[in-house]
């Protein structure tokens, strides 16, 4: 007997008490929890996103679309970034004012090569106001998962209000589980020393989120 | 209203003052109290130590002794929780074990009419000011089964706040277990003692003269720790405070 058959057999014997007509899934789970917490206008939702991102030590900026190239250039220059990773589908005009060397997101790049890049700029798939979370799904303006992981500085551009949702349930509905997803809530952190939160471990230690109207 | 006092075996044997206080208090509030002499033990110690089958005859005995009363009142959160929460569960387990519904049916009538004392005062009699007078500084420890199993909430505090002359001070870490836990106190004596010491130190820090609770089992552990640590505080059951009047202290 294979272990597969052995385990499935054990499971079935263990569940001998479960009736054949057990309550089906859709009736077994009450869904009377909230779809989102509280009522907010669009502008209030965006404000809450900014507040919660900042609460977990992300640096939040807000600008109009036309101001974005200048802002991104300023953020990179302010950090002294000499190179920046660029996903293939990042709108070209975002980088119009950037001096830093553009490093394309290539399949062949090694982790060591990526480790020498100073910053990365991406868009996102969705942002969640209640939790201060941005979600990346590997779309053309976000690139491979590793490019937002190895550089120490990540700038993520969120288009507001279109990409902003209130809550986790609303975000899941917008996401495609077949894509590789990365949920990011502030820079990396740890509570491993005396259960006290410290920001900045292996992922980018600086997360800047630009909310673009 | 005629109610049965379910005193509990521990109170009957070791804390008769608490029983007398309950009788005096309820009588003062116009309640006719009876003490069915056939009562013994609810079976909590058996059940919680793993002797569920030995607890079953005690549950049946309880149901026989108290079945005919309108209400059953007990000055013990944990024994109250045994009847209210665990008797139905024992019935369910017997059923699941293929032993039929007899046990469930036997205990069913006593379950809903069993009340912990402060619950009975606040919910059934609808009083929070019982006309007591107790001119002392008191801190209150909510015992675990009263707090979490019965959900007594702020009923004891409401009652204490209405007592004339009583100054109520907040107990730091109040909701943390005192470390009694029935046979836990002897099976894991070191951890139990450490919890008890922390509880007593917290109580001591309030500067209160009296640590009050609604369960003498926990008070036996806390009081025993207080006396061993030579802390000058007294453990007092809430019934004895509520029974005290200007004419006479219950304790």
């Amino acid at each position, binding site marked *: 007997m294979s272990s597969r058959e052995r385990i499935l057999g054990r499971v079935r014997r263990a569940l001998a008490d479960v009736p054949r007509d057990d309550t089906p899934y859709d009736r077994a789970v009450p869904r009377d929890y*909230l779809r989102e917490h509280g009522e907010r206008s669009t502008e209030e939702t965006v404000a809450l996103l900014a507040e919660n991102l900042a609460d977990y030590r992300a640096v939040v900026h807000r600008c109009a679309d036309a101001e974005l190239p200048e802002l991104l250039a300023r953020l990179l220059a302010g950090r002294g970034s000499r190179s920046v990773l660029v996903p293939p589908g990042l709108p070209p005009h975002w980088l119009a004012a950037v001096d830093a060397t553009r490093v394309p997101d290539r399949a062949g790049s090694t982790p060591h090569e990526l480790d020498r890049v100073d910053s990365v700029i991406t868009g996102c798939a969705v942002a969640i106001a209640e939790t201060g979370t941005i979600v990346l799904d590997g779309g053309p303006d976000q690139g491979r998962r590793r490019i937002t992981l190895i550089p120490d500085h990540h700038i993520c551009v969120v288009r507001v209000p279109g990409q902003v949702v209130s809550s986790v349930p609303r975000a899941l509905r917008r996401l495609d*589980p077949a894509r590789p997803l990365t949920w990011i809530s502030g820079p990396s952190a740890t509570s491993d020393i005396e259960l006290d939160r410290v920001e900045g471990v292996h992922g980018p230690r600086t997360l800047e989120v630009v909310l673009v109207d | 209203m005629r109610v049965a006092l379910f005193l509990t075996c521990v109170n009957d044997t070791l804390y008769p003052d608490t029983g007398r206080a309950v009788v005096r208090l309820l009588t003062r509030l116009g309640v006719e109290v009876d003490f069915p002499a056939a009562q013994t033990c609810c079976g909590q110690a058996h059940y919680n130590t793993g002797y569920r089958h030995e607890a079953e005859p005690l549950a049946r005995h309880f149901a026989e002794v108290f079945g005919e009363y309108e209400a059953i009142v007990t000055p013990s959160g944990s024994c109250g929780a045994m009847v209210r929460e665990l008797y139905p569960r024992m019935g369910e387990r017997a059923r699941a074990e293929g032993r039929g519904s007899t046990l469930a049916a036997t205990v069913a009538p006593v379950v809903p009419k069993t009340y912990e004392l402060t619950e009975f005062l606040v919910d059934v009699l609808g009083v929070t000011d019982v006309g007591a007078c107790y001119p002392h500084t008191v801190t209150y420890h909510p015992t675990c089964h009263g707090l979490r199993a019965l959900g007594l909430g702020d009923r004891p505090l409401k009652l204490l706040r209405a007592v004339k002359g009583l100054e109520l001070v907040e107990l730091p870490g109040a909701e943390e*277990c005192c470390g009694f836990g029935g046979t836990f106190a*002897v099976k894991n004596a*070191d951890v139990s003692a450490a919890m008890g010491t922390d509880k007593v130190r917290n109580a001591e820090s309030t500067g209160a003269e009296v640590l009050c609770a609604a369960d003498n089992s926990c008070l036996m552990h806390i009081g025993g720790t207080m006396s061993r640590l030579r802390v000058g505080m007294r453990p007092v059951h809430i019934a004895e405070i509520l029974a005290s009047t200007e004419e006479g202290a219950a304790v």
Partner: protein
Amino acid sequence: MSGTYLGMPAFPQAARDAVRDRRLRGNLRHATHTIRAKRAKAVTEVSDWAELREAGRRIKDHTLRHLDRYLVQVEEAVTAAGGTVHWAADADEANRIVTALVKETGESEVVKVKSMATQEIGLNEALEAEGIRAYETDLAELIVQLGKDRPSHILVPAIHRNRGEIRDIFRAEMSEWGRPAPEGLTDTPAELAEAARLHLREKFLRAKVGVSGANFVVAETGTLVVVESEGNGRMCLTLPETLISVVGIEKIVPTWRDLEVFLQTLPRSSTAERMNPYTSMWTGTTDEDGPRTFHLVLLDNGRTDTLADEVGRQALRCIRCSACLNVCPVYERAGGHAYGSVYPGPIGAILSPQLRGTGSDIDASLPYASSLCGACYEVCPVAIDIPEVLVHLRERVVQGGPATRRGNKVLLKPARGHAAERAAMRAAQWAFAHPGLLRTGQRLASRTRRFHPRTLPGPGRAWTGSRDLPAVPAEPFRDWWQRTRGGEDGAE
């Protein structure tokens, strides 16, 4: 780690040393009290906590009740998405599978994301025996690994260490494993985290094989979810060419939508955050993004035995948040090591004796490692009634009875060492069935009360070692009642 726990003393003996260790007590008290208050605040923020908790409970219960169907669904979905599914009936089989998979790659080292399942099966030791070095990359796991220590908490395995101890471990041990600790390392948490970053970075960048567990596996999509904070998880899940995930069969949820419950309750319950910094979700493999090869090892190792117990099966709802540890007054004083398992605290006290059986001293003592205060049940985000299961397992220990071990129905004998207690309980039950007998005993106690010692010999010493006995009253209540019928008797 499983081997490490063989021959563990029973909980009371192990806890005694911890209770007397002032530094350990201080570390645990500080950490658990810090997180308790934060968790309470994080939970209060969501007004529908009770509904989320109930939904979480029901999702998990439903999944467990139809686990065979969902396991097959997971296998189909993961395979369709490009992954390979393996089944491991026990720890040895899981270790053999993972070792063979690593060897196939030709590599001799792996990077690991913190995973309870791989700790449970002792994977690191099994790999080591085959010449493969496993690097733990979670900060707390790193502290434990460098310190040749054992984990003592589900979420924060090095919770028993304070910052000064961690600095000393880093200074002394990092050079043995790779990049040494920076010169002049202090004990500030930020500097310690930076030291870990530098030490592990070279390992992440060269790693070819990653090993992980998973917090959730979605049956309908085949998606695995890892919830973390530091980014070490993302490193292990995305940089290597091969990813091997060892996942207990109870980690399944039926649908994608179910994550909306647990992604709200898990972070708040564990680190007391609205959301943890990083969550990775992947479905099989993705072309040119992340590992080219993905293996999922589905682990039984006692879970189906646990499932067979109608009362005990609720322990399999656990999402490993560790809120029950943080709130437990026994854990706070006994520490995690006393539980003799990778699963310490209240959940460990009901999980270990079910996964491993109640045969050993430590496993037979774990159901008693609780005062039944109920704080664990109160905070549990999937409403596991831990006190109920503890009492149920106590019954199994003292009375024996039917159980399932390795898939076979067995009839357990009562555990040794409870004979005197059993006799006392039966005698008490008999006495309580005879009120007259109870009264005789009470009267005897009252009449002899002047002769009662303040300390007791034998088993009674466990009480009087730290507590005075209550004075026995002049008469029991029932005698007073018989005399006065509740009226005033002038004695007051």
